[in-house]
């Protein structure tokens, strides 16, 4: 009885709080992500990263005149149909002022081409990396903080070359992200003078990859470059290779960058044997640390792929709203490049109060995010920094920025 009463009391308090919140203005930003679907496991920390930015901003004074930044989640399922539907909902029903997302390149392509570009809503994707997004005819409405595969592919090739690899086998999951990345890698590595002994596409989510790996292992490759999501096929491929004794050394890109790779394969086996490029987290960089400490406190790993990107994309939108001084969609889109690129007062993750003060004083700001400088080029892309990550003595990934 007492318990019920307490619950009632609690509920009514919450209602009251919600009531007051409704009176204060609320500024909605769409948070479009593939919550269900093939990369569901990757999306959870990304959405948490976005939410962390919003929470920090609200705690440090909110947007404009103390308005609350609300992230409206919509599921794009990694499917262009769902991407278009999610975009339509957040743009029209929720009347969001801007969008973070979508997750997969396919869903992003559908959403921006069919909905957000015609509607004049700016969208920053935090994880769509397909080169096709670069050359969209987008009226400067499509941005991304995730570097195009074109950058990461060549960064990984360079890294392999610098570390003495001359012959490599490679395999990629047949999806929009990995196929693109693998293509760039192959061209770049060959251009450096390297040899690809075998390049094999694979279908993700199969139970076993032993036969594919056996085919790849011929011709004396020094290592295997894997382009896959860790959950879809990456871990299975590494496990199959190691268990069958086919490959010992691996190169991979950020779809494979997750603590569960180490947890599931084992730190001892992987130490010295794997290098993963990841979009830009210089772990000593104050920007990254500011994000990482706060994110860790929410119970998520700051190293989760694209979680920091989610944070940065959200923070950038908030800065653009503040800079624009209104919730006008066109003004926000126009302000975005100014707050992201130099010159201006350097703003790091978590420094919302500082940014607000600087903008109020009429100063320019330049956001230096958790994933790097986040300077947008003419296409709305970032060059992105990449780090090379290896397994540290503590059984966690440790990274160094590639210069």
């Amino acid at each position, binding site marked *: 009885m007492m318990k019920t009463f307490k619950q009632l009391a609690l509920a009514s308090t919450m209602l009251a709080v919600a009531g007051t919140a409704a009176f204060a203005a609320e500024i909605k930003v769409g948070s479009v992500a593939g919550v269900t679907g093939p990369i569901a496991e990757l999306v959870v920390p990304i959405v948490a990263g976005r939410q962390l930015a919003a929470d920090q901003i609200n705690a440090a004074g909110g947007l404009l005149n103390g308005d609350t930044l609300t992230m409206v989640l919509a599921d794009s399922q990694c*499917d262009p149909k769902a991407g278009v539907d999610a975009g339509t909902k957040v743009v029209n029903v929720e009347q969001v002022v801007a969008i973070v997302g979508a997750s997969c390149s*396919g869903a992003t392509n559908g959403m921006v081409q069919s909905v957000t570009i015609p509607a004049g809503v700016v969208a920053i994707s935090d994880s769509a990396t397909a080169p096709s997004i670069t050359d969209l005819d987008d009226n400067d409405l499509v941005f991304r903080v995730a570097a195009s595969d074109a950058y990461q592919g060549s960064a990984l090739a360079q890294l392999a070359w610098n570390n003495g690899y001359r012959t490599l086998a490679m395999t990629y999951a047949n999806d929009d992200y990995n196929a693109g990345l693998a293509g760039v890698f192959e061209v770049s590595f060959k251009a450096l003078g390297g040899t690809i002994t075998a390049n094999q596409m694979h279908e993700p989510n199969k139970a076993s990859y032993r036969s594919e790996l056996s085919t790849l292992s011929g011709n004396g490759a020094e290592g295997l470059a894997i382009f896959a999501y860790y959950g879809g096929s990456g871990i299975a491929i590494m496990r199959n290779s190691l268990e069958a004794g086919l490959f010992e050394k691996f190169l991979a890109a950020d779809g494979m960058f997750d603590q569960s790779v180490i947890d599931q394969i084992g730190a001892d086996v992987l130490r010295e044997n794997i290098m993963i490029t990841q979009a830009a987290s210089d772990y000593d960089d104050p920007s990254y640390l500011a994000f990482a400490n706060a994110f860790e406190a929410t119970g998520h790993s700051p190293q989760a792929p694209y979680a920091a990107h989610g944070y940065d994309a959200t923070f950038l939108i908030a800065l653009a709203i503040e800079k624009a001084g209104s919730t006008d969609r066109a003004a926000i889109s126009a302000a975005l490049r100014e707050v992201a690129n130099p010159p201006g007062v350097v703003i790091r993750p978590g420094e919302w109060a500082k940014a607000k003060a600087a903008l109020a004083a009429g100063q320019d700001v330049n956001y230096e995010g958790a994933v790097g400088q986040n300077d947008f080029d003419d296409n709305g892309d970032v060059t992105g920094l990449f780090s090379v990550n290896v397994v540290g003595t503590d059984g966690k990934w440790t990274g160094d920025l590639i210069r």
Partner: protein
Amino acid sequence: MDQLYGYFLYGLSLLTFGGIYAMLTLGLNIQLGFTGLFNAGIAGFFVVGAYVSAILSTAESERHLGGFDWPIPASLVAAMLVSAVIGWAVARISIRLRADYLAIATLGIAEILRLTFKNETDLTNGARGVSYIPKPYENMPEPWNQILMAAVVLAIVAVLYFLLERARKSPWGRVMSAIRENEGSARAAGKDVDRLRVQAFVVGAAMMGLGGGMMAHYLKFIDPNAADPTTATFLVFVMLIVGGSGNNKGAILGAILMWTIWSATEIFTSMLPGDLAIRSAYVRVFLIGLMLQIMLQKFPDGLLPEKRLQSSDSR
């Protein structure tokens, strides 16, 4: 005011999506509702239609086969034809299979088709998809572009409905339902049952191809994920069953209603805070499954039950 306008535009999108799905449910209705063919490979015809129409209508691209620049109506007709031809081939080899077997065979064939579009990268840009698919009236000012898009879709659905109702009441339609009700007696009456079934299958496949093509134009982008069996096959079944299998009005109603539910429930679940909003995405799928169960158990004939032409018993 903005908010009302927003609801209006969202409503148009529901009608457009729902209308495109209605092309799929009407196609399925010919096969399952009228003739009793359990085609579980809707996604296969959908993906064929989508890619054919996309590739024929896009400008030249180095990423995929293209550069034909066909006008949209012509590419849609081509999508229907190619779907129909593939439907004919599928029907030829599998039409004699009964119920479940046909379902599994067509499901397998649909997956093979999807894998083909995913793997033949030179033709289709593989998993990376086809961009810049033209959309009808996209250069008109808002909201006219969206109104006209929805109008085109609904007009096509209306034409299909009209034609199907004509067909249903024609001698051909009567024979079809006779086959479904009692194959033995239809055969005994000298009807070439297999040939009629193939016809129904082909017509249904063509409509599914049209739906796929329309979807590609609406999304302006298509990739193999759009033909995921969950949203391109099973959801269509749910729509038809909820609307009323065998009833063309029911098929259309089911498509628009279920799409609205599928889409609009998220507006409510996304109000939940943080982690709960993510988890509620799973709950949403659970509720859709539960709703299907309740419909099947309590209203097995759907919202608009079939009006049978002959007085006969279901078993």
